[in-house]
């Protein structure tokens, strides 16, 4: 609903800058939402989310520009490639917890970044890949609409995953892994499933990024991007899906709104982030409030 209004408004304004900004916000919305599934809900602190995002972006960019795949076909392929890497990472690290898992994902993030940068024959290295075809040749408005469509589908999948009994199992994994095992659920299996789904969506986000900006380079998938994504999740509220989207909107739009501040811009953004964490440690929309709908459904069940 809101997205439709936004789409009409942007169509009326017809400014390509705004289209780019809107796609960027949506792409980061997906990244934050998927990182929230992994880090906020399941408690697996990932410092390498940009790696899966980058793998998705390069998969779609290379397939469509070098091998003439149709953009639509590369979307699922980008997701699958990222999901495979995510699943493999989770399988290898299934016994690691907390900071050990974080460092492992940090390693994956660096490995992917360095590969994108140095495997020049395949990725064209620091020059990046230019002239990526758009999702559709119709108009920028249609393209943005398509990004919105993918965003909505992913959001729906995440919403159902997080606000369900399965989501409860993931939250329990975050709280106490051994206890989850003692309750008959396999923590390793849950971790792998979470990484596969979260990284699939990060890969899709990467493909959307490639088709929106029509240019990808390794710099887009640096460690600092992983940290920005993590900051979006924390500011929005760890474990809260609507919070993650809010956090992504805030941290993509704020730097743009503050452009007039020039050199002071990132200083102000940093201070605002600091303020949010100091005064809203549970995030813009905390997990407890985000799960309200699910809870009211349970209350209704009890009465029936």
């Amino acid at each position: 609903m809101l997205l439709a209004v936004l789409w009409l408004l942007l169509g009326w304004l017809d400014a390509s800058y705004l289209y780019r900004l809107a796609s960027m916000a949506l792409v980061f919305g997906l990244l934050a939402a998927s990182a929230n599934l992994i880090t906020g809900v399941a408690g697996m602190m990932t410092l390498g989310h940009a790696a899966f995002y980058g793998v998705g972006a390069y998969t779609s960019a290379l397939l469509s520009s070098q091998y003439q795949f149709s953009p639509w076909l590369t979307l699922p392929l980008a997701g699958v490639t990222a999901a495979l890497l995510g699943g493999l990472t989770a399988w290898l690290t299934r016994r690691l917890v907390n900071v050990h898992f974080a460092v492992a994902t940090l390693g994956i993030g660096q490995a992917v970044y360095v590969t994108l940068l140095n495997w020049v024959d395949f990725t064209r290295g620091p020059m990046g890949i230019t002239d990526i075809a758009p999702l559709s040749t119709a108009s920028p408005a249609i393209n943005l609409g398509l990004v919105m469509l993918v965003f909505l589908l992913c959001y729906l999948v995440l919403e159902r995953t997080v606000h369900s009994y399965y989501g409860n199992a993931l939250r329990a994994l975050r709280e106490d892994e051994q206890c989850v095992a003692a309750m008959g659920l396999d923590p390793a299996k849950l971790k792998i499933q979470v990484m596969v789904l979260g990284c699939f969506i990060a890969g899709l986000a990467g493909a959307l990024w490639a088709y929106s900006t029509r240019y990808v380079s390794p710099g887009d998938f640096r460690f600092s991007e992983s940290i920005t994504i993590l900051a979006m999740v924390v500011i929005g509220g760890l474990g809260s899906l609507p919070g993650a989207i809010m956090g992504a909107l805030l941290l993509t739009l704020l730097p743009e709104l503050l452009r007039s501040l020039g050199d002071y811009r990132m200083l102000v953004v940093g201070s605002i982030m600091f303020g949010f964490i100091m005064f809203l440690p549970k995030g813009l929309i905390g997990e407890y409030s985000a799960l309200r709908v699910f809870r009211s459904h349970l209350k209704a069940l009890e009465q029936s």
Partner: protein
Amino acid sequence: MSETLLELKQLSLSYGGVHALEDISLRLPAGGITGLIGPNGAGKTSLFNVITGFSRPSRGEVHYAGQRIDGLPVPQIARQGIARTFQNLRVFPGMTVFDNVSIGALSQQRFGWRALWSRQQHSAQAVSAATWAALRRTGLDGLAFELAANLSYGKRKYLEIARALALQPGLLILDEPAAGLNDSETAALADFLGQLSQEGLSLLLVEHDLSLVKKICNHVLVLSSGRLLAEGSPEQVMRDPAVITSYLGSEEA
């Protein structure tokens, strides 16, 4: 004796050179409450860990309901019907009471992806029904949507039991259920465990409070330095000279 629920055959557990358990063989009949007592470091928690799969025995076998379970992964043993609580109260603090208990109910369902899409789906309804049943059974239904972290210590004990009950176990293993409770809370817990037993659930518990053991257990196992020192009815065991010297004697001296 009625049919055997749990059987340990020549069970040993050692870490490096330390023998936590040595050559323990015993049969636990179905039904009733079995108490496991012994001085600190006797191997009580080690025995629980071996039964529930948290530790692998170095030698020997564990059979539950006619099936060999030693060496199986922890979740699989739980799904076969052995639920446990922990010595140091382990609830999921950041989740509501309802959500805590639903974790126990989940593993009894074949929980397919379809259940995510429809909350009316059969498996989701079964989880909710089993969760509410366990909450009512433990008197926590009024607190269902409270965060577990906000519960009193005593209530959290019941929450841990409710979560285990939601698994619909055949054997419930409790590690020091009365630790930290005052006299009236202990008495209430004893009544509650007695009721569970009358409803057909088999219980195995480690307990330091010997008066509680005398009151509710119909069978007692005594461990000392990793060995099974004695077993029998509470009266028999507490008259056993070996038990008195190794355990009771040291406490009453």
